[in-house]
């Protein structure tokens, strides 16, 4: 009797050695969460603090007067037109990008285009080299057509990066759609166009949604091109924010930053459903 008890005790203590005691595990887990949350939300929370601070004297750890004064101020000022412009351009770029890249990526994914690797390399370059030096030259090019400072020029420069994102994600999306489904449709008498719209597109829909959300966010956040091509005439949100921050209008810049951050974090919630890391992981490796 006593033997079996001691055996049980021995086995349970063996278990305890194998795994750490629950208390230590809990604290370690909590510590892990605390460090990660501090690391990610620390910088972000200071933006929110600053956007709500009406008066803040050093070395007070918190603002001495809170309020939405600067939020009102921002919404009454020029920011609203920048916000509208940014969203309008982002939506236009997303739609254009869908039209331009969905068929193209499908053809690349199914090896139906000659020089596939050359084309893919072309679409990798904008991601593989710094944008600023190229865009300063693109600006010289656009001057020839009087497109600098126009909405067309701004949309075009956004489109460059957007197309790259879109093609790379969409190619791997289409590659994940089983080709046998298409063959089945051909066997049953479906034409190429019919099959594309009724078989391929519905199966690729989640990936296409994920990729257009990425494109939308890219365009919303685009800064370099907007500063060079659009700047004094058409000010997008990031440029507006940059100007405010460089003028040391801390609160205005912080309010704009929070506004710029919100769409991304909201979309991240949606993307969780659609976004699979393999879509992006294919970047540069198809």
């Amino acid at each position: 009797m006593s033997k079996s008890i001691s055996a049980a005790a021995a086995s349970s203590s063996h278990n305890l050695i194998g795994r750490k005691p629950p208390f230590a595990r809990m604290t370690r887990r909590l510590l892990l969460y605390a460090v990660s949350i501090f690391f990610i939300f620390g910088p972000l929370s200071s933006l929110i603090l600053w956007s709500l601070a009406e008066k803040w004297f050093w070395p007070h750890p918190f603002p001495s007067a809170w309020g939405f004064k600067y939020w009102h101020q921002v919404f009454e000022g020029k920011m609203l037109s920048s916000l509208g412009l940014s969203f309008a351009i982002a939506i236009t770029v997303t739609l254009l990008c869908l039209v331009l890249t969905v068929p193209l990526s499908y053809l690349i994914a199914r090896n139906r285009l000659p020089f596939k690797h050359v084309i893919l390399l072309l679409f990798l370059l904008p991601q593989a080299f710094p944008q600023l030096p190229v865009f300063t030259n693109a600006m010289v090019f656009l001057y020839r057509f009087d497109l600098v400072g126009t909405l067309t020029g701004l949309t075009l420069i956004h489109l460059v990066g957007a197309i790259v994102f879109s093609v790379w994600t969409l190619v791997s999306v289409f590659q994940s759609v089983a080709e046998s489904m298409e063959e089945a449709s051909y066997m049953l008498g479906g034409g190429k166009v019919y099959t594309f719209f009724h078989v391929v597109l519905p199966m690729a829909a989640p990936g296409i949604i994920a990729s257009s959300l990425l494109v939308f966010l890219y365009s919303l956040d685009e800064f370099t091109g907007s500063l060079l091509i659009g700047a004094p005439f058409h000010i997008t949100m990031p440029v507006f924010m940059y100007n405010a921050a460089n003028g040391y209008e801390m609160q205005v810049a912080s309010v704009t930053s929070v506004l710029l951050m919100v769409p991304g974090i909201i979309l991240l919630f949606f993307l969780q459903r659609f976004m699979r890391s393999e879509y992006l992981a294919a970047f540069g490796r198809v």
Partner: protein
Amino acid sequence: MRKTNSHSNVFWHQAAGVGLATPAIAVVALLFMYPFVLSFLSSLRSQEQVWTLANYVEAFSLYGGDLLFTLWVCAVSLVLLIGCTAMIGGFLRLGAYPVLEFIFKIPLFVPFVVVGHAMRVFLAPHGTLNSAIAITGWFNPDMLPSFAFSTLGLVAALVWKNLGLALLLVLGGFRSVNEGMLEAARGMGAGKLRLIWHFLVPMNKSSIGVMAVLTFTSMLGCFSIPAMLGNAGGHQMLMMDLYHQSVYQHNYGLANAIGVITYVASMGAAIYYLKGLSKK
């Protein structure tokens, strides 16, 4: 009927394919490839339109220090980023932490400009981090260091911003590692750290390589973060010099010479990609 038409059918299909492909390729070719080539040509011309290497000589003599500084900042950030990504990715792979995974993806969706501003506010001499430390009362608040406008601020911002993308690229690879193999290693008594550095990382060299190449270029070419965090005295990131030369000085030759130097520095990406292709 069909057979006689098949020849023209093929032609029409090809024409349709080319037609569908052209617009997107045209946009990238005209607005990226052409300016890209243009910057090489323009870097070789003086302001009097004479072919010369003077721009490069000037670029190296004026901005040689900045070039080294930029490469140094990017290299340090990259090493830190790879370390962080491997550790975090490994923990996310080995245990179930859906909340943490969500949290670490946030930087991917925060714009570069916002990161620059956030880090500036967070790390400034009178910033939020220092006030948070000051609450504890252990330090004299006026003696606390400021990281915001130093190299450390730049590195912190670059690592923070690229963490989301890096994690996304690497986690996919980590997730595809066979569970049985990890179980076996665990059975032999390997701890988490050993599992990460001796199994997950070596088995995913290629995805870590792609991540390193892409993020290195993105750090090198990043303009908004140095523009926000700038450097009070001392060296600057090359993109700032380039912007200064082209927008304020209108010295396009010199600006493009700096540009070409950054192309060469970020050449790794293209070479890596071509190598991957030639293996297949």
